């Protein structure tokens, strides 16, 4: 993985010092709340319902075990012993004290981490495929490009005060696990007809109040042109993005109002001016970055023959093996999903002890690396096949082996009313009620892949508009109500879900989900997936199931 050199360390250390000074000036009354707000947001600090919330960047979801242990230390020392992994592969702490945030940042800087641009109207953490570098279906490891983008976008002097937040995602597999088409910029590494690699560039996707699927504005961009092209897009957006209305300020509105064609013309014209300047990457610049992401020293091992016996003797292990373990590009290894979706816990929450034990496992049965996913789980990327039983046993003891990856209970949910000051309605309680109605894991397996995504308000942090089943919390005369959407997808066939009907009360939302799924079970043909049944039949039968 990437390692800081003196330049990176200096920047992060100086940012900590700057933020400490900003916070002190605020506490001394030298900065007003209005002046301090954008400054703290650019460092991931929100003032939440109960306490400040600090969001720490996990660039493209990659962590060393040293970093994981530091995240655990912070949870224990400055918070209430846990953290919440988010849909942007970051981690949030819900209970730090404002005065201690500079100390937290200093601790983070000591392990090459920061909270730079995890919020605010600037370029946010670049996200990617959680299986980058180990996926059996990828063209190339996208992380080198993610890191190049991270460095270019960090404290970029021109783009710190954009009209609105700006998110970039990169993927290099056919299967899009990074949801690139719901990002402001989505980059898809592909091979063209001449066998050259480059990026298909999508712009203007996004969730929130006006969800939009991004449009392709360039079929092929040479990797050496990556930064100049990004800079051209950002400059056009900084200049022309709307600043008169917060809800119309995202780039998706600019693309829509100007038309994709005109927008593309502006970008291409700007790009032509800066393409061959200092922004042009050399092939050797890229190679230098790729050297950080060389595969680790895999042992020449084969799959273990014992595993079938272990699975037969221990059905729980067998289930986990089937659902939470996937193929690795290296023979003899597997990728393991560490489930943060215990039915009794809030999705994405993880205790300090769990983090530390996962780090131990990654050291013992891997190369000291852990990943976070936009689906709010953790990944052990390099587990030897023969060690799977041991890893499972350890995870099981920690409550991290819920064998539900890809099922309805592997749901995404934002913190909602329990923590977020913007929320209309709770997510965590509803998640629990839904889990109660789907307590039987075998039934979940029969139902197959159902991506349930839930947000506590229109901001859509829980990606509800692209859930196979999406749930959105709304406020109805001070009460918590829920809208239901069906048929969305964040993958390569990205689609927005359709609204099923009038919102339902808190009391009715979990039973409504149950009715939808029951109707699917009746209507499904053979092994047909939920989303395919919805696409085949439309939402009418499901509307009837819920509303009678």
């Amino acid at each position, binding site marked *: 993985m990437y390692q800081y050199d003196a330049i990176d360390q200096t920047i992060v250390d100086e940012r900590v010092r700057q933020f400490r000074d900003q916070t002190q000036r605020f506490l001394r009354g030298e900065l007003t709340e209005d002046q301090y707000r954008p400054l703290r947001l650019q460092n991931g600090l929100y003032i939440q319902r109960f306490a400040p919330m600090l969001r720490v960047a996990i660039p493209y979801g990659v962590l060393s075990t040293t970093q994981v242990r530091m995240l655990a230390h912070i949870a224990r020392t400055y918070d209430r012993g846990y953290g919440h992994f988010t849909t942007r592969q970051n981690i949030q702490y819900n209970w730090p004290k404002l005065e201690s945030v500079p100390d937290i940042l200093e601790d983070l800087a000591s392990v090459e981490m920061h909270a730079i641009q995890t919020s605010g109207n600037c370029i946010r953490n670049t996200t990617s495929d959680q299986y980058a570098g180990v996926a059996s279906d990828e063209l190339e490891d996208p992380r080198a490009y993610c890191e*190049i983008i991270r460095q270019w976008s960090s*404290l970029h002097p021109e*783009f710190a005060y954009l009209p609105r937040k700006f998110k970039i995602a990169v993927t290099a597999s056919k299967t899009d696990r990074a949801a690139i088409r719901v990002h402001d910029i989505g980059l898809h590494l592909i091979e063209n007809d001449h066998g050259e690699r480059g990026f298909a560039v999508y712009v203007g996707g996004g969730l929130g109040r006006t969800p939009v699927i991004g449009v392709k504005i360039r079929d092929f961009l040479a990797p050496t042109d990556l930064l100049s092209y990004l800079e051209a897009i950002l400059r056009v957006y900084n200049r022309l993005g709307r600043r008169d209305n917060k809800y119309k300020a995202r780039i998706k509105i600019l693309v829509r109002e100007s038309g994709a064609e005109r927008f593309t013309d502006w970008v291409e014209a700007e790009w032509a001016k800066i393409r061959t300047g200092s922004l042009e990457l050399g092939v050797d610049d890229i190679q230098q970055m790729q050297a950080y992401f060389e595969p680790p020293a895999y042992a020449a091992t084969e799959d273990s023959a014992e595993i079938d016996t272990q699975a037969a003797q221990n059905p729980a292990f067998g289930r986990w093996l089937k659902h939470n373990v996937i193929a690795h590009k290296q023979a003899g290894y597997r990728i393991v999903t560490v489930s943060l979706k215990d039915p009794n816990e809030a999705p994405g929450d993880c205790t300090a002890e769990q983090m530390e034990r996962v780090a131990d496992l990654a050291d013992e049965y891997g190369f000291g690396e852990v990943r976070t996913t936009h689906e709010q789980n953790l990944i052990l990327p390099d587990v030897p096949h023969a060690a799977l039983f041991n890893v499972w046993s350890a995870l099981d003891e920690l409550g991290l082996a819920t064998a539900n990856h890809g099922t309805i209970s592997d749901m995404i949910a934002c913190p909602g009313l329990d923590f977020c000051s913007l929320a209309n309605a709770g997510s965590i309680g509803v998640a629990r009620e839904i889990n109660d109605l789907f307590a039987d894991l075998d039934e979940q397996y029969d139902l197959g892949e159902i991506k349930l995504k839930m947000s506590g308000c229109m901001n859509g942090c829980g990606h509800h508009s692209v859930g196979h089943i999406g749930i959105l919390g709304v406020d109805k005369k001070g009460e918590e109500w829920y809208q239901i959407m069906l048929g969305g997808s964040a993958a390569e066939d990205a689609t927005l879900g359709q609204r099923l009907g009038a919102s339902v009360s808190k009391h009715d939302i979990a039973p409504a989900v149950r009715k939808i799924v029951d109707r699917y079970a009746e209507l499904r043909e053979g092994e047909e997936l939920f989303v395919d049944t919805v696409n085949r039949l439309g939402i009418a039968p499901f509307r009837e199931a819920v509303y009678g």
Partner: protein
Amino acid sequence: MILLRTDGSRESINLRVLDADEAPSGAAWEAVGLDHPALAEAESPTGLTLANDVNVETLDCDPQRFAFILLDFPAFTDGRAYSQARVLSEQLGYQGTLVAGGELLQDQAHYLKRCGFNAFALADAEAADRLAQGFNDFTAAYQATSRHELPVYRRRRA
């Protein structure tokens, strides 16, 4: 008004933006807007001021005519003038004094400097002191943005 420069020097100036019907007097810190008739004259007014929604890439007057160009930050959270400054200094090769005016906080100082601003119009000495403190918040950066820096990937292999 105090003019602070990126080298830390400051001077007290009388910065004036002329109304369209006001003739330039030739004084040092007089600026005109794009609608000023004096722009059509052969003799240039000293300075030009641009609103932050002007596309500097399509200016139909030569920026080099002006000893200074004043760009505006109506609020410090409105970052359009950063792009204008970079285009002026990097693409159009503007060599004169690029002045930032409006709401400037010390927390923006290093960004302003790196985008090519080399002077800042501030209300008083105190504001100048505060902004100057921010010049050195960072001694390192990833991007090549001002006129003389190299991007990080070039420096690392130097």
